[in-house]
């Protein structure tokens, strides 16, 4: 059975000052299997972030519905962990307290909260930084903490909205490996939005390509690369072939939107 079912979800921004209403997302359907890692790939303005925010409950759909384990989604909740592109750690909390933020909402005792938080800090390689404030961390470390914070809540699904978009290339590559490693060990259902083709292939088991204006799903391509995936796989012929295909798809999507 599908973990997450997206049924004809669309988004229409209402008309303002006499202008036409803007369609950000055509009615879109997508089934996500349990423990799948799906990347949503598309140019900017294709509505991929809007779709993810609707699943996260941060925005309401104009039509259609989202079902998680068969239950309709209404509003944000701890069952859907969210990692943002911007740095969203709470600046007044340390790394450990940030990771434990959601656990307190669940009513866990403090000792247990801190134990889980320490454990997750270790899993994202920040064991030595638990008492640091966000401002003392690099961008990559902040995003690692944000991922740990979302996962510490044990969500049913992890939603990532271009989480590595603001990082430099080297850091980004390391973060991809770390995230993939966590996914291989923990078995999580993940939806990962990106505009980076290589990133979409490397971490994903399935790449959903979206086109812009209005946003809709254009292609749905399985990534048949074995796990665990070392970073060297990026130069393998299978990887390069997939990349060539996706480059074509994305180019076509952008050209179609511009004309």
């Amino acid at each position, binding site marked *: 059975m599908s973990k997450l079912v997206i049924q004809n979800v669309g988004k229409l921004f209402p008309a303002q000052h006499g202008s036409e209403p803007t369609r950000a997302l055509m009615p879109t359907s997508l089934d996500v299997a349990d423990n799948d890692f799906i990347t949503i790939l598309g140019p900017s303005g294709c509505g991929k972030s809007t779709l993810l925010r609707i699943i*996260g*409950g*941060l925005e309401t759909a104009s039509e259609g519905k989202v079902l998680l384990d068969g239950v309709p989604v209404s*509003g*944000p*909740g*701890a069952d*859907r*962990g*969210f990692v*943002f592109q*911007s740095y*969203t750690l*709470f*600046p*007044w*909390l340390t790394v450990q307290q940030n990771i434990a*933020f*959601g656990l*307190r*909402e*669940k009513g866990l005792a403090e000792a247990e909260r801190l134990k889980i938080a320490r454990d997750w800090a270790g899993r994202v390689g920040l064991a030595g930084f638990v008492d640091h*404030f*966000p*401002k*003392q961390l690099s961008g990559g470390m902040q995003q690692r903490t*944000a991922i740990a*914070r*979302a996962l510490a*809540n044990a969500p049913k699904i992890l939603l990532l909205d271009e989480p590595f978009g603001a990082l430099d290339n080297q850091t980004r590559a390391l973060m991809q490996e770390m995230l993939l490693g966590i996914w291989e060990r923990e078995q999580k259902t993940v939806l990962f939005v990106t505009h980076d083709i290589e990133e979409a292939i490397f971490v994903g088991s399935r790449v959903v390509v979206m086109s812009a204006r209005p946003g809709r799903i254009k292609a749905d391509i399985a990534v048949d690369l074995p796990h665990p995936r070392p970073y060297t796989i990026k130069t393998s012929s299978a990887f390069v072939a997939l990349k060539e295909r996706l480059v074509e798809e994305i180019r076509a999507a952008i050209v179609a939107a511009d004309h």
Partner: protein
Amino acid sequence: MKPLRPVSAPARLGYGLAFFALFVAFWSVATFGGYVQRLFLADPLTMVGEGWSLMTRYGFSFDIMMTIWRVVGGFVIAAIVALPLGILMGAYKPIEAFLEPFVSFARYLPASAFIPLLILWAGIGETQKLLVIFLGSVFQLILMIAVAVGSIRRDLVDAAYTLGAGDRSVVRRVLLPNAAPQIAEIFRLVLGWAWTYVIVAELIGSSSGIGHMITDSQALLNTGQIIFGIIVIGLIGLISDFLFKAVNQRLFPWAKL
């Protein structure tokens, strides 16, 4: 000098003291040099002498304590009223829409202009003095706290919701800690303003306090005492500012990192 280049801590202290020295030097030249009549402006030495006799013979320390107690008392009451109102206004937009227009209007009512009315209502006792301070600071505090609480990055609130926080939790665990350093800074600022109200309140209908001493000295044309009183107010302001800054840095280390 290069624009925006920082100065070292000792140099900063030196520059700061240098201006005070320059100020006193200018004052000395004006008074000792005979450019200004003694009747209008006492020289620095006379001022120190008058200050000494005020402290030792006329019990001026009691006046200082009275004034401090009035400022702090009125300000604390204002803060106790303003904090919950400001937080509610900042967090909940309907409450803001309800209160903001009135508070913005009331903010411009000059506290000193209320003194005659307050004397009519509350007499010339302590209540009237506290009310002047209260009226002068409460509306400013409410508005500034509301802005501080409301000015949070939207994505931090979104993040809290996706971590399972409820509406009240978002106010308590996100909006409040986010605004806390700014609120402390607002307290520091408005307390400074409260000092100007207390002196005005004491100039009229008072039997103690720094402002009262200043009016008495005016009747005796004792400019040395007046200047001493003004300098004491400045020093107290400097000390309270310093204390506030030290406490804020201790309480909110993350804000300055």
